[in-house]
Structure formats: structure tokens, C-alpha cells
């Protein structure tokens, strides 16, 4: 997996604030890359620089090892967060117009649009005016237009807003399928559950700086709080005695005689030793390391960063 898209030390200054302060991201080919961060962190600015809409004050964007140019934009499909369509235009006509602007010929665009409209079961919308569509329906059309020309790089900014769970799933599966077909996907969202589900890599941007980057598993491992979840049958007091010292207990409600505990290590005790100690006191039903969710990581990283700043 060589590096497909690299943003190098990007600086962008707006009249009264620094939107991006030496931000670097490294997007591997064939990955789904989560670009995260609170509102106003600079994600949209970074995306606009990658898509060549604005130019950075400093730094450069490398696409497949070469400095990115306007010609490379053809290989990008970009679904912006704020997206609209001409209200008075018909859906099909408009979709055709947008894919032609991407550089597709009319005939090819028409053929592919028909295919996608059938796939999403929206053929009947073709002659409807956009103003007759609901928000979710319009989003579907925009999604199709974004991916239609088989771009190598796809950038989705909040792709799921306005979708019901069924359509969210439909789009999710489509995104995964596009990745499997070789596209690289940059994915910006606030919904952390979808990040866990989809992303391989993430970068977290806060106040114009990249504060966290890496493979999602590694990032989560970095944030693991040395906490374990234990379900067992037996006497809680015996367990206390066996593990005396070095471990903090948090008792969870018991169900049907099954004890439930969260164990937090105070001092490093090897896991194998810990299990031996527990095993001597009670019958283990399950023992599991607690891996933090992206939600927790997001909040902890951003708050930690804000405190430093």
C-alpha cells in the first residue's frame, strides 16, 4: 500500500484566523480514511485544498507521488457537506449535466446514469423536478453523480445526513464496494459509529492542527485505558481478596447470578498473571480488554488538545 495522496505541511491563513497550521495527512491507496474533527476545525478547508478549489499558502498536495494539478481533479469525486441542486431542473437532466461537467460524454453519462438509477430503484424520478424530491432523495442523486465517473479518489463530507437507516445502509455498502473496486475514500463525518464501521485510517484535526493520525486499530490501542471487563460465577469477596491491591473494581449490576465487573489496573500486572489470580477465586465466564470507542477517543483527544492550547 503506497501512499496515494499526501498533503504536506499545508498552511492556510484567512483574513483573521489560521485555518490550517502545518497540517500533513498521508492517505494510503485503497483505504477508507476518516477525516475527523469538531466543527470549524479546518476539515472543509483541507478538502477544498485537496480538490484544488483553493490554493494553500504553504505546503503541497501530492497525488500518486506527483504534485497535484487541475487535470487530476477528474480523478476525484467530491460530495461536499453543503450540497444543492437546481430546484427547477429535472432530476435526470441535472444529473446528466453534472456528470458531463466532470468530463464524461453525454452518451456514456446517460448509459451509466440509467444503470445507477435502476440500481437505486429511482428510475421514476428521472423526469421529476428537483424541488419535488425530499432531502434524502436529493442526496441519493448527488451520491450517484459523485461516484458515477469511477474516480480513483472519493471524498465524502457527511454523506449520511438526511438518509433513513435503510438508505444509510445502502450507501454504506456502496462505499465499501467502491473501496473493494480499488477506489480510495476520504470520509469526513461526526458520526463516530460509522467511522468505526468503515474507516481503516483516521486523522483528527482540531484548531487547524492534525492532532492524531494512524490506523484505526492502532489509534484505539493507543487510547486503551488498561481496563478489562469480567463476567464470572462466584463470590465477589473472594475475588477482592485474590486481587488485593493494584486493581480498582467497579461493580456492575448482576444478572441471574452472573457477576459483572470492570477492572482497572493501577499498576501494570501482566494479563496472564491477572487471569490466574481471578481463576483461583471464581469461575470465569468472559474476560475481555475494553477498547475505547471512537467517540471517547474523539472527545478525549480534542479536550486534551484544547487544554494544552
Amino acid at each position: 500500500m503506497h501512499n496515494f495522496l499526501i498533503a504536506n505541511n499545508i498552511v492556510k491563513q484567512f483574513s483573521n484566523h489560521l485555518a490550517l497550521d502545518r497540517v500533513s495527512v498521508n492517505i494510503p491507496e485503497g483505504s477508507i480514511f476518516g477525516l475527523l474533527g469538531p466543527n470549524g476545525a479546518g476539515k472543509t478547508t483541507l478538502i477544498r485544498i485537496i480538490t484544488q478549489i483553493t490554493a494553500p499558502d504553504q505546503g503541497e498536495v501530492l497525488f500518486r507521488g506527483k504534485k497535484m494539478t487541475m487535470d487530476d481533479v477528474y480523478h476525484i469525486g467530491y460530495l461536499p457537506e453543503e450540497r444543492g441542486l437546481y430546484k427547477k431542473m429535472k432530476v435526470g437532466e441535472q444529473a446528466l449535466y453534472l456528470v458531463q461537467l466532470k468530463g464524461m460524454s453525454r452518451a456514456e453519462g446517460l448509459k451509466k446514469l440509467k444503470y445507477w438509477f435502476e440500481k437505486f430503484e429511482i428510475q421514476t424520478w428521472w423526469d421529476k423536478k428537483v424541488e419535488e424530491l425530499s432531502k434524502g432523495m436529493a442526496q441519493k442523486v448527488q451520491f450517484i453523480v459523485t461516484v458515477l465517473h469511477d474516480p480513483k479518489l472519493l471524498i465524502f463530507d457527511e454523506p449520511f445526513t438526511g438518509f433513513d437507516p435503510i438508505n444509510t445502509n445502502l450507501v454504506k455498502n456502496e462505499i465499501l464496494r467502491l473501496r473493494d473496486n480499488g477506489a480510495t475514500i476520504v470520509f469526513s463525518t461526526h458520526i463516530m459509529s460509522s467511522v468505526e464501521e468503515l474507516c481503516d485510517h483516521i486523522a483528527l484535526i482540531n484548531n487547524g492542527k492534525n492532532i492524531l493520525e494512524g490506523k484505526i486499530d492502532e489509534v484505539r490501542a493507543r487510547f486503551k485505558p488498561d481496563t478489562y471487563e469480567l463476567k464470572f460465577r462466584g463470590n465477589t469477596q473472594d475475588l477482592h481478596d485474590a486481587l488485593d491491591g493494584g486493581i480498582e473494581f467497579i461493580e456492575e449490576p448482576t444478572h441471574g447470578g452472573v457477576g459483572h465487573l470492570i477492572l482497572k489496573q493501577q499498576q501494570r500486572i501482566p494479563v496472564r498473571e491477572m487471569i490466574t489470580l481471578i481463576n483461583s477465586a471464581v469461575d470465569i465466564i468472559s474476560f475481555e480488554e475494553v477498547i475505547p470507542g471512537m467517540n471517547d477517543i474523539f472527545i478525549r483527544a480534542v479536550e486534551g488538545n484544547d487544554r494544552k492550547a
Partner: protein
Amino acid sequence: MNKINLIIQREYTTRVKKKSFIIMTILTPMLMAGLIFGSGYLATKEDNQTKVIAVIDKTNITEGAISQTDYIKFKYLTGTEIEAAKKDFLKSGYYAILYIPENVLISNIVQLYSNQQTTVGVNEHIAKALDTFFSNIKLKNENVPLDILKRIATNINVSTIQWTASGEEKSGSAEIVLMIGYISGFLMYMFIFMFGAQVMRGVMEEKTNRIVEVIISSVKPFQMMMGKVVGIALVGLTQFVIWIALTFGIFYGAKFVMVEKSAEKANTAVAANIMDKANAGMPQISTGQYEEMFKQISGKFSAVNFPLILGCFLFYFLGGYLLYASLFASVGSAVDNDTDTQQFMLPITIPILVGLFVMMNAMQSPNSSIAVIFSLIPLTSPIVMMARVAYEPPIWQLGLSAFLLIITFMGSIWMAGKIYRTGILMYGKKVTYAELWKWLKYKN
């Protein structure tokens, strides 16, 4: 380039397919033609009704002085007082009562009483007749012999004849030139304003509906702006060409119908004697008269240099439009909603209005210094110069004005491109002139 074409195509077709465009394009020339023919028809119809005017003459000398026409008759009432006549007016069925007081020679005033607004034709007829009559009396009182009066009576008609460069003579018509100057100047004002505002609304639609965000990754902002500007210009040209074609079509169509039909009618006049009687109320104009009328109108128009006017109209429309449309586009890109446009619209509207006012003046005196100056200033030249073109201004003035206009619209497009590029992606910020100035200086 291919992308700009796509944008132009979309801007053009969506607008040309609109019902409002089709209706306006077809209806306007019809309305204009209808107005011309209709008012002409109404004027003849008005004259049709025979009007009997009672005259109460305290001087007792004017009887026969006011000539009777086909439709205006005079009846002298002797021994009736004006008060009594006014009281019986409704029963009498007179159109009006003309009261000539005894002291008319000193006061120069006669009164026309009626229960309706009397027509200009009637008033003028009476005034003209009495004018001549009483001034003759006055001259006679001063012992000027009558036969001298008859000999010195003159009525001058000014018939204007222009040379062309080749020395050929053609009869001109000041009214026609005035009319054409007025129409083309006003049309220019309308076109620039109407289509300029369309550009602004289009840009705002794309910005507020966030359509730009979707398109901007495949097209450069400048391409987007120019595509819109050019597309709408083509809409304007389409409308203009259809208007011209329809107007000429209606004119020649009407000529054909009227001349041919009345010729037919003349041929079958004997057979259709009864029908003619039924039509007795209609103005009876013979075929020859129709032909004469159209020949006269055509003759008057032939003195006008239409290729020059049309050529100038196209040039000044494109130039003026490009200048103003780019300004309108930058306003549309800078604001978030309609109410914010006001502050930026004013500086654009004022020069257009100034142009309109100067044009009114330029029509009367096309070579006055104010007309010349404002027909050189690019912000007003499209409107003012159009009013002057029918008078065929010096070629250096046309050239200089055109040159300045081209320079200026190139500058304004360049400037608008810079403002547009920044403004189109800027939301939720109250934009000031200082802010716009900053945008102009941004590198990218």
C-alpha cells in the same frame, strides 16, 4: 472550453424554455404592433362620429368662419343665452357649446362647454379657424387690405433631405429618427437591466442553494461565471432577434393584408353594395390610400441607416451587458440573500439611470456636449450612444466610445472574477466594500 460550453448551454436552454420567456418574446412585438394599429384605429373611429357643436356668438360676426368638416358641424343659436343652453344641454344632444363673448378681440378667449372631455382635434380645429378669422379682422381694423392678406398667406412645410456619402439624396424624417433613437436607447436600458439582474439572481441561486459547492470541484469559478454571463447574453440576443423579425413580419403582414384585401374589396364593390352600406361606419380608405400610407412609412424608414443601428445595438448591448452583468455577478456572489443586495445595487443602478436621463436629452440635441461626453463614458455610453446613433454621429466618437467600452468591460470582468471566486464560497458574513477590496487583492 468544453465545460464552458456546457454551462452556456444549460444557462441558455433552461431560460429559453421558460414559459415567461416565450410569452414575453412573442407577446411584446404583438403588443407594440397592436398599440400602433389600435391607437390609429381609435383615432379614426373617434373622428367618425358626427359632432354637432352649438355656437352662441355674442359678436354676431363669426358665422361661416369656422369651416364644417365631415364630422364636426356647427349650429348657430341666435337669441339663446348661454345659461339656458347649458341647462338644456343634455336634452339638446349637442356635443358641446361654443361661447364667443363680445370682448373676444381683447380677451382672446372663447369657451367650449361640454359634459365630456372634448377631443384635441375639435379644440384645434376651432382654435385654428378663429385664430385666422380674428387676426384677419384685427388686420382689417388696422387698414391692411384683404387682397394683400390673401397674397401673403404662407404655409411652410419642411421636408428634410439627406445626402449620403455617394451624393444620393433621400428624404429624411426627424420624427422617425427621434423615435428610433428613443426606442433603441430605452431598449438598451431595459436589456442591460433585465439581463444583468438575471445574472445576479442566477449567481445567488447557485450560492444560496449550495449548488456551487457541488460544481466547483469540476469547474473553475471563472468558467462558471463566464458561462452564466455568456449564456444569458445569448438569451438576450435571441429575444432581440425574434423581436426584430416579428416586428418586421407584422408590419409587412399588415401591409399585405390591408392593401390586398382592400383591392379585393374594391373589385367586388358593386356586388357587395349592401355590405358596404353595413360598413358605412368604418373609415373608408381606398386601396390607393393604404398603398400611399405604407409607401410613406417605408419611405421614411428608408432614410434611416438600419444596418448601422442594428450593428451598434448589437455591439453596445454586448459591451454594456458584459460590463454590467459582471458587476451584477460579483454582487450576487458577495451576498447571502436578497436584502443584502441593496447596498451594492445602488452604485450599479445610478449610472444606468443617469444614462437614461441623459438619453432623453440626447434625443433632442444629439450633439450637445453633455450627450457627447456621456456617450463616451463606458457606464452610460451604451444607452446614450444608442439615442445618438440614428443621427449618425462622427465616426471618431463611435470609435472612441467603443474602444473605451471594450477596455472597461474587460477590466470589470477581471475584477468580477476575483470577487466571484472568493464570494461564492463565503457564507454568513456581512460583506462590506472594504472586504470586497481585500478579495480583489487575494492571490488565489
